[in-house]
């Protein structure tokens, strides 16, 4: 056999294994890194918005409440023509008077 190839073959077999201290250090790194990965993949704490939504009974309840509020405001502002007749049908004649909830401001610009 060629001397150099002989030396290479010896070198392949003669390397001492890693020391116990090095193996312990490497394993400690592996465990710390794995623990950090686990922390990163854990679900995050709920934020402020999620907390508020929970107080109102969840996203569904909050959406329903908000929709009802918006529809009420719209009805009050627009005063559809059919609304008095509906109230007449439901509540009886002249029991509900029309109210101007959103009066115009044109009168403020009129000179006396």
């Amino acid at each position, binding site marked *: 056999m060629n001397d150099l190839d002989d*030396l290479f073959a010896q*070198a392949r077999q003669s390397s001492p294994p890693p020391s116990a201290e090095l193996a312990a250090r490497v394993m400690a*790194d592996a465990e710390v890194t794995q623990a950090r990965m686990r922390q990163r993949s854990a679900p995050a704490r709920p934020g402020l918005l999620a907390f508020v939504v929970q107080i109102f009974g969840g996203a569904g309840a909050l959406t329903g409440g908000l929709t009802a509020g918006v529809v009420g405001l719209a009805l009050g502002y627009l005063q559809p023509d059919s609304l008095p007749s509906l109230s007449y049908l439901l509540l009886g004649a002249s029991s509900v008077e029309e109210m101007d909830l959103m009066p115009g401001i044109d009168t403020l610009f009129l000179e006396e």
Partner: protein
Amino acid sequence: MPRDSLAQLGDDALMGLYAAGDPFAAHLLMDRLLPPTLRYAARVLADRAEAEDVAQEAMLRLWRIAPDWRSGEAQPRTWLYRVVTNLCNDRLRARKRRSVVPIDEVAEPLDPAAGVLAEIIEDERMAALTLALQCLPERQRQAVILRHIEGLTNPEIAAILEIGVEAVESLTARGKRALQAILAGQKVEIGYADEE
């Protein structure tokens, strides 16, 4: 997954299990990958303590990249050799800046009471090889170690050193010739003269 079943898996699959939090995957990966990582670093640097630091750093980078590891693209072992090559290059450059000559440490005389004559001769042969390897330029040394001691193929070495396969062939051929020339003058010292 039971440890016996894990032992059947390749390094690639173990990387995925490690990232998923399997407690045994890291042990198996370390058992398989730390010895060649340390051996390569020790041959390139010719300094055991420095090689241990490099091996630990390379393994740490392997743990960190585990969640992003793309199965089937590169083998963890080949990836580690590339990381070790880069870390060793940094250290060798730092040595040059400090003008530290590590060969003095390599050429320490052996303790004559260490063992029988055959062991002394073998130790001297290994010391001569280590010394001769340190005389080679960095790239030649790395290519020769990866090809002839670690037993990698030329395409694998090309990927590790980030050069072409032809360049690897040239580096290993020139490196081997240079080693033969260096060791030719030491045949008597390393015990080959008696065998001729």
